[in-house]
């Protein structure tokens, strides 16, 4: 690719998924959120949940911006004391899913829809069947979850909810080894481990 093309690509806005590993501390969500709002950047979707490592949370943040902005944002987020590591990836670099739930009236669905075909075609499954309503669930990309809304809309979709994007980075080696590195790194010769730091659960609770 020519330099001009590269520059163009770096200046083009596109979807980026930011993955942030943080300590499980009250207030870190706000500290991360204001990094975006301060620059008037809209967060399109946000997922925060415990990671595979105890006490460490994983954020998935979806925004549409240029790579240059992403690079700066990532550094600002990583600068937060309670943030361990930040990655940002384009859609090509990740496997991602969103989960959606659809509530529809049971009688209409039972009467008018070939439920089995509908589930099969949309990769959906039934979570709950009650006399008054039925809840379907599907996972997929935005377009896929959107499609089922269209299908169900005519049958009186009562309620719909979609989760934030969760994403796995294709070529990541996982965070466990990285974390061990953080715990080992730095402290100078005269390490006086703060006795409370390893027991943060015991001390830093509210």
């Amino acid at each position: 690719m020519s330099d001009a093309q590269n520059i163009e690509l770096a200046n083009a806005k596109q979807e980026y998924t930011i993955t942030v590993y943080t300590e499980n501390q009250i207030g870190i969500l706000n500290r991360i959120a204001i990094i975006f709002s301060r620059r008037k950047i809209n967060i399109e979707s946000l997922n925060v949940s415990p990671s595979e490592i105890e006490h460490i949370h994983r954020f998935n943040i979806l925004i549409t911006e240029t790579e240059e902005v992403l690079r700066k944002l990532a550094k600002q987020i990583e600068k937060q004391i309670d943030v361990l590591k930040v990655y940002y990836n384009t859609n090509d670099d990740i496997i991602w899913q969103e989960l959606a739930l659809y509530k529809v009236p049971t009688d209409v669905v039972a009467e008018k829809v070939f439920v089995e075909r509908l589930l099969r075609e949309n990769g959906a499954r039934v979570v709950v069947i009650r006399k008054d309503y039925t809840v379907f669930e599907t996972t997929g990309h935005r377009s896929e979850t959107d499609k089922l809304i269209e299908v169900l809309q005519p049958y009186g979709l009562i309620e719909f909810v979609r989760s934030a994007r969760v994403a796995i980075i294709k070529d990541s080696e996982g965070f466990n080894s990285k974390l061990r590195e953080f715990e080992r790194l730095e402290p100078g010769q005269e390490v006086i481990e703060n006795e409370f730091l390893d027991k943060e659960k015991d001390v830093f609770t509210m």
Partner: protein
Amino acid sequence: METVQEEATTLAQPKKTTTVSGAVALLEGLIAEGTEVIFGYPGGAIMPIYDAIYDYKEKLNHILVRHEQCAAHAAQGFARSSGKVGVVFATSGPGATNLVTGIADAQIDSTPLVCITAQVFATLLGTDAFQETDIINISAPVTKWSYQVTDASEIPAALAKAFYIARSGRPGPVLIDITKNAQIQLFEYEGYTPCNHIRSYRPKPIVRNEYIEQAAALINSAKKPFILFGQGVILGAAEQEFKAFVEKSGIPAAWTILGAGAIPTDHPLNVGMLGMHGNYGPNVQTNSCDVMIAVGMRFDDRVTGRLDKYAKQAKVVHLDIDPAEIDKNVKADVPVWGDCKETLPLLTNLITERKHDSWLAEFKAFEKIEEEELIRKELEPQTGELTMGEVINQLNLLTKGEAIIVSDVGQHQMIACRYGKLNTSRLSVTSGGLGTMGFGLPAAIGAKLGAPNRTVVAVIGDGGFQMTLQELGTIMQFGVDVKILILNNQFLGMVRQWQDLFNEKRYSFVDITSPDFVKLADSYSIAGRKVTEREKIVEGLQEMLNHPGSFLLEVMVGKEDNVFPMVPQGSSVSEIRFK
């Protein structure tokens, strides 16, 4: 010394604990961290801490300020003159919100502060209780870290983390909010353990040798290299390392407003100040150098002017401890991540000893033009109204570059920074990034307490002085020896200058009247004098400097003098103008 055997028995025993209140644990922790001075103001929620400090008067010097904002500024002044962490106490609600300006100032100027705010009882959190405010979230954008303590047992660890974070890496303000119940609560205190490692926080990036090598190669092959230095040199206590680097490389070096004094102002390779009101040579040469070496500075817009016309011809080497600063405003060709105290000696080792005589001569030529066209008129006017510059010039002659000059914000600040003579580091204290009017007087109080053996001169305008003049009360009560030099032009001068230059002299609300400052000082039992004639300047300054204790000297200067040179906003640094 204990014997090995004794040590072994000590280790085998369970830790000794004492039952103390959260407030006492806080004070013990502050003492363990070497705190000498606390700037604070009491109130309802912080009363348990103030009750405890009543018994610690011998060990902790608490300075009662007259407004919490000034507690923060005073702590900044203390931190800047001493190199230590400034400590602030404020109560909940308005006490805490009043700190915010000072905290924001400390954040943008990388000043280490530990701010302790009190909070309502934990059970009342979120109920809009009396004097409850969500200071953790209000302060989040302007603190390096913050934490709310709701249980006394958290205090030692939270405080240890706070000090470690405030002073390590790129320093900054931290805030600990302690609920009233946690201050009162008794708990088993095991003593204080300082913190020096947090797994999610790496204060300094690891130095990468390939970048040091690349930087050295660029510097060695450069024909017109140019060094820009900022406060990073001072914060990293790397003045000696920096001087060695500058002298071996023979490269002309210019400073940002906060980098002033990192090498002496009269060092032969110190070519002056950068930026909007900086010197002619450094601004113009920015756009003719071939290699730019930025050390511990962040390319603020007041330094760079228009970015797309800033040093485009130059290869940029950027040394910084904060990875987020590299490539933020100016793209670095060689990013030298790390603490400059470590990276500078590595770089100095690899560079060849050189002299850049003809390149340096270019700077001298620009200096001569600026001197003739501008500086002489400013510093040695023979007729006409008094100038701010001549007052600073006379001050320099008397203090010989050994005094701490604290400045407020505005025209006088630019003059004080441009012309102030500084023989060593930590002699200039000013509000650089935030530009907080009212900073000067309280910061001077802190600066004096941080460096008691230095003369501290607070250079302040008539506008800024009126923002925090209540601190005359603090000066009076605690006998702080601060020399207050008010340069009175009867205007909010910098805004008036912009209205003059860019708004067709539409002087909109910049005409400010003042009280009789000398009488005001007198009512605080502070001696004072007003100077309106050229012949009396030296005498007035001498009286101020020789006076035992604080003194207020007001000098009436030209009403409509402008500060030049100037890089107008939106212009390139090479479009610097003299009028």
